[in-house]
């Protein structure tokens, strides 16, 4: 009897407090000489390779800006949390950053499905979120006022672009398409179907589990359909298995490997059955130029300078490292554009108007009133296991959120 009234009173009190707090919640995390940015990425566990160095890259950009005097006299203060790449932990990290560390904006997220879990919360609390390297389609479409991302490429754009390349460059009418039965797969297939229909090509799809160990069955089925081009949208391990199985089954047509699998090319060749299997392989690339080219050298130099100890280790920097830069650049540019009287609203408005060349990615970083995905296009490189040869032009997906 008493319990109920106590609970009702408590509920009322909490509601009143929440109401009172929002009135005060202006320019959170901003002081005359500091702006606090909350960063999060997988720093441990199986997905750490997607996050650690991406976050490091973003931080080294912030450090550079700080050394140059900050933005409008403010130093950027980064607060870092591990999101473990899973939804519950990511939400915990985000809430900690927002409600305990009182950050001005969030700059984080390497795992799409997990980032989506935090999206409603971010929107409800009106906190700007600039993703790191997550494609994050689920949080970008439909567009909302607070979340920006896809600095590498969105999965929709990746799938659509790969099919566009297959249909336009090879004139293919029968395209075999292998993706995963997870969120990534659902997103890229969505745009791939759209693109195939637009080009009048048939798409033969096999959706496999990311844990698959034996790809014989799906590959035999695809082989039976006699495709002209094979598009692989899977992660690195299944992609290598598929390339190898394609060779075993005597498929000699072109193979297009999406950016999801191209983290470690040398390892991919070793895993996929050696140069023999790579006679006719094209890889999707979202960086400005061929990996290791002079044009991108400054990125790696900067990393080596910022993290000399880390850089001396085997496997560093991790492959996705450069993707952290355009994301951090967007944050600093928007802070700059928002002017000295910094508010979240101004920051968001500035983000919406961004259009710049990062010097890192294939295309410009460009948002707009209805667009929250930074990058739409990809380039393609013929790779035989040793040398790379760029296919002229870039290939964009036509799918747009309706």
């Amino acid at each position, binding site marked *: 009897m008493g*319990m109920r009234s*106590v*609970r009702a009173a*408590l*509920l009322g*009190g*909490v*509601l009143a*407090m*929440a109401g009172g707090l929002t009135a005060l919640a202006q320019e959170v995390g901003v002081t005359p000489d500091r702006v606090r940015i909350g960063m999060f990425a997988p*720093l*441990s*566990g199986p997905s*750490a390779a997607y996050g650690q160095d991406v976050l490091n890259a973003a931080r080294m950009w912030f450090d550079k800006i700080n050394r140059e005097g900050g933005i409008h006299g403010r130093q950027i203060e980064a607060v870092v*949390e*591990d999101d*473990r790449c*899973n*939804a*519950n*932990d990511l*939400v*915990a*990290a985000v*809430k*900690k950053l*927002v*409600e*305990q560390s009182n950050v001005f904006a969030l700059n984080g997220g390497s795992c799409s*499905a*997990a980032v*989506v*879990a*935090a*999206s*409603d*919360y971010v929107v*409800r*609390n009106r906190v700007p979120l600039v993703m790191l390297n997550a494609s994050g389609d*689920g949080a970008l479409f439909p567009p909302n006022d607070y979340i920006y991302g896809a600095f590498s490429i969105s999965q929709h754009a990746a799938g659509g672009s790969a099919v566009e390349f297959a249909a336009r460059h090879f004139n293919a009418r029968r395209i075999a398409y292998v993706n995963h*039965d*997870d*969120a*990534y*797969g*659902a*997103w890229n297939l969505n745009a791939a179907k759209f693109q195939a229909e637009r080009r009048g090509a048939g798409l033969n799809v096999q959706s496999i589990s990311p844990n698959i160990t034996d790809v014989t069955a799906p590959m035999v089925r695809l082989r039976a359909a006699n495709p002209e081009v094979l598009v692989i949208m899977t992660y690195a391990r299944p992609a290598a298995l598929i390339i190898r199985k394609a060779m075993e089954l005597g498929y000699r047509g072109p193979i297009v490997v999406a950016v999801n699998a191209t983290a470690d090319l040398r390892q991919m060749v070793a895993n996929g059955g050696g140069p023999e299997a790579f006679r006719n392989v094209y890889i999707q690339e979202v960086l400005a130029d061929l990996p290791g080219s002079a044009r991108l050298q400054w990125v790696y130099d900067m990393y080596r300078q910022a993290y000399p100890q880390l850089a001396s280790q085997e496997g560093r920097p991790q492959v996705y490292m450069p993707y952290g830069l355009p994301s951090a650049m967007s944050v600093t540019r928007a802070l700059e554009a928002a002017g000295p009287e910094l508010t979240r609203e101004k920051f968001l408005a500035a983000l919406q108007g961004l259009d710049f060349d990062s010097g890192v990615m294939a295309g410009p970083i460009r948002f707009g009133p209805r667009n929250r995905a930074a990058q739409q296009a990809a380039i393609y490189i013929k790779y035989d296991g040793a040398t790379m040869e760029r296919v002229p032009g870039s290939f964009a997906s036509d799918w747009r959120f309706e």
Partner: protein
Amino acid sequence: MPPQQAVAALPARASSNLRLGLLVPAVAAVVALALLPVFTSGYVVYVANVLLVYVVLSLGLNLVIGEAGQFSLSHAAFYGIGIYAAALGNKLLGLPLVGCLLLAGVVAALLGGVIGTIALRMRDIYLALTTFAFGEAMQWLFLNWEPVTGGPNGLRIPPSSLFGVEILNDKQAYPVVLGVALLMLGATVVISRSRLGRAFRAVRESDVAAMAMGIPVRRVKIMAFLLSAFYAGVAGGLFATFSTYIHPESLGFQTTMTVLTMVVVGGLGSTGGALLGAVVFGLISELLRQAPAVQEMTYGLILILFMMFVPRGLAPAVSRWVRGRGHV
């Protein structure tokens, strides 16, 4: 035949004196918990909400494994069913919060009853592996039944409402989560002391003797399974009150294992243990986020060391300590 032992009258239950001694701190703890949102950040309240969900999950798993001795490994599946039932009840039927919670519990319990009826023909390892397989199959279903669960895209959970008020953040959800968790805790204590609780333990200790006492062993086992599924379902419903999104990824064996670890670290077969395990282990896991590099190894080491040196879990150790202090 063992030699005559001087029976140290090992009290199997706390004396009433001790119970009174525990009552005061317990009330104090509840009051402190109730006031939590007033003096902490939303993040802490979120962590508390998650911990309370784990408490309900642990209480449920302890009923079937600890009390009734049936090794079930499909807890995450029932938890998932609870989340989806509550979310869909809210989204499609527009049910209020209480309705969603009940729906979550009842749907999970019904399915638990059906699965229990089939799986409980097996015992021990076979039961464990059947329920494990069921859990994996359910996760696959969550991932592939797109029209209902959203499949790999996950499912957005709309804000639930209580007495016409929308619950939009953790602090608003907290009183509900805490209230329901305490209710479930109370129910667990009552069940554990009741005739049914005694029947659970009888089945655990010796099913042959239980039968001879007139206990319908099979029905009691199914009941334990069903109740445990109900708890998991309610826990899922609670999760849905303060979360905005659910993805099948978080409903796999890993989650079952986390809950099992909580129950075992706390002390299998004891309600207090389930409570303690969920809180302690949940906190450790959240704190370990600060030390990413060695997380997995630390987690593994904790499990192994516990099994080697504190095999009965924390609850008996703590109650020994409390009793020891009482004598001083």
